[in-house]
């Protein structure tokens, strides 16, 4: 019998089940946040939906106990894979004191968690790229066998910080993996109004690094290119730029109506290729999961999301006076 695709990548059945669970959990947390937003319980949602395969596939190719990530606001799948819990994400969505990202101080989905080496970001996009490059430089100086993984949307790849950061990483051959999650839209602006080159990956050559474009709907393909990029980085061969081609299933955010600028049939068509459904099909065909076990997973994740929601909703807010703290060292 020929080897199954995940086996030829060195992934066990348990690992791909774990990947699938992580993707589905990201989706379920995200969907719950929309419900809570529409019910008037949380102020804002910005989604990962449609990009979970790229996020989780990439994360599993990294050393999730040692590598650093500088995610962007859609990377719910990345931060879950790096150890943030559904409960912690819900605490952030409700802006509660116990939120480990910022204690309810940052906007939702501005992820950051020191213990899981998730770098906190800023609202103007792409500021995370030079930060990740700094971590890459630190890793190189300290001769640590780690990489710094930074993600962004394709819209962000037009910002100065993208070019300044990648150029530095290229010059110093730093262990930095940059993954652009190309979902085709910068809020409302479509790809053909954003860049003149065919692919974001084309930009790699300008910084002296390989640029690889990959189907972001397939977690195994993303896993493979990130795994190779990590090996290059650890071997001192320098950074890699990866474009993961994805789709955005939702409006830009809970405050946006995408029907004003795109044909909704386009979204329906993208959903036919929903990475969570196609990966479930693969896992069934590969005899890793059955309809029954898929249902069990679904039920178990539903419980986690319910528990997380209840916990966060009932958790206390930060004291208003605490807003005056932590400006300088105290």
């Amino acid at each position, binding site marked *: 019998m020929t080897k199954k695709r995940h086996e030829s990548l060195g992934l066990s059945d348990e690992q791909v089940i774990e990947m699938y669970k992580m993707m589905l959990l990201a989706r379920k947390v995200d969907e719950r946040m929309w419900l809570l937003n529409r019910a008037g319980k949380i102020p804002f949602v910005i989604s990962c939906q449609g990009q979970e395969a790229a996020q989780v596939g990439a994360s599993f190719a990294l050393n999730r106990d040692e590598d*650093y990530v*500088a995610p962007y606001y859609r990377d719910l799948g990345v931060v879950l894979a790096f150890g943030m819990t559904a409960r912690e994400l819900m605490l952030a969505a409700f802006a509660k004191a116990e*939120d*480990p*990202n*910022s*204690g309810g*101080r*940052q906007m939702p989905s*501005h992820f*950051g968690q*020191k213990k899981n080496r998730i*770098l*906190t970001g*800023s*609202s*103007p996009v792409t*500021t995370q*790229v*030079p*930060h*990740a*490059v*700094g*971590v*890459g*430089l*630190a*890793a190189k*100086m*300290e001769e640590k066998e780690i990489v*710094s993984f930074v993600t962004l949307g394709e819209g962000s790849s037009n910002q*100065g*910080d993208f*070019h*300044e*950061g990648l*150029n*530095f990483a290229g*010059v110093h051959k730093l262990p930095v993996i940059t993954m652009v999650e190309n979902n085709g839209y910068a809020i409302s602006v479509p790809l053909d109004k954003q860049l003149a080159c065919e692919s974001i990956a084309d930009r790699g050559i300008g910084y002296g690094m390989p640029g690889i474009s990959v189907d972001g709907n397939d977690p195994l393909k993303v896993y493979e290119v990130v795994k190779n990029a990590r090996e290059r980085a650890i071997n001192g061969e320098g950074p890699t730029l990866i474009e993961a081609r994805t789709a955005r299933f939702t409006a830009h955010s809970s405050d946006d109506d995408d029907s004003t600028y795109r044909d909704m049939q386009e979204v329906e068509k993208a959903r036919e290729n929903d990475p969570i459904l196609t990966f479930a099909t693969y896992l069934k065909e590969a005899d890793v999961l059955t309809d029954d076990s898929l249902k069990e997973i679904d039920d178990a994740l539903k419980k986690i999301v319910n528990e997380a929601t209840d916990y966060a909703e009932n958790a206390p807010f930060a004291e208003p006076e605490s807003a005056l*703290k*932590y*400006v*300088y*060292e*105290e």
Partner: protein
Amino acid sequence: MAQMTMIQAITDALRIELKNDENVLVFGEDVGKNGGVFRATEGLQDEFGEKRVFDTPLAESAINGLAIGLALEGFRPVPEIQFFGFVYETMDAINGQMARMRYRSGNTESAPITIRSPFGGGVNTPELHADSLEGLIAQQPGVKVVIPSTPYDAKGLLLASIRDNDPVVFLEHMKLYRSFRGEVPEEEYTIELGKADVKREGKDVTIVTYGAMVHSALKAAEQLEKENIDLEVIDLRTVSPIDYETIIESVQKTNRVVVVQEAQRQAGIAANVAAEIQERAILHLEAPVIRVTAPDTVYPFSEAEKAWLPNDKDIIEKVKYVLNF
């Protein structure tokens, strides 16, 4: 005690801290082999190697952005912005990112970064080289702004800045780099941030100032002494946060204040100082708090800067105004 210029005192402080703390890194445009366009980092790459003292590509946003990444990994970066007018290219990294790191992470992260940068007028450099832009940074809580006026202060304040656990923008007035020497101890010492220094004690009028204007104020004081007018000159040293206690104490003694800054009237620090004095000590004032500043125009071409910059004569005029009010 050694006699040093301010630039020598700065190099000395960098050398001491590179030696003391292996996490200190010095980087920026031309700071390595070239030793910086003003030679502030001269010899440091030879002494400490390319890993600790290195040239970056010409990209200000990347310089401070990667400083944040390095700081989060436990380093103590000391990046240089070649001229402070170029700070507009990296304002976000300073005011938008490093200044908020501690706050937005709920005190789990911090960014102990010291950004050094030359600025200031009177040396025939054009706009965006000479501009006094300290007010831009001082508007942002979470980052400190330090401006030394003497070689002694430069060394002690720079060492304190690098050791501080919050970000500091350390501004070096170009006119003071080599214009005079001062006594500087060879050993290490720090000067507390956030504390003003009374550079001259007096009883008649308080001058609150910082940077190169400290020297204009001292020059004015020397001349006024001949007319039996006794100025107290306060050097803020740290312009954010400001040491209001020292200012108010002095105002309560002299009852008259002139605030002097090189920046334009609508920019900078003086407006805040004046507002704070009237809020805290209005009953001690015998005259309005007067400001001496540059006019609200774009920094001029070299031939005009002498006329444009505030000087000791402007200070004397305003001192007499508050005395005769």
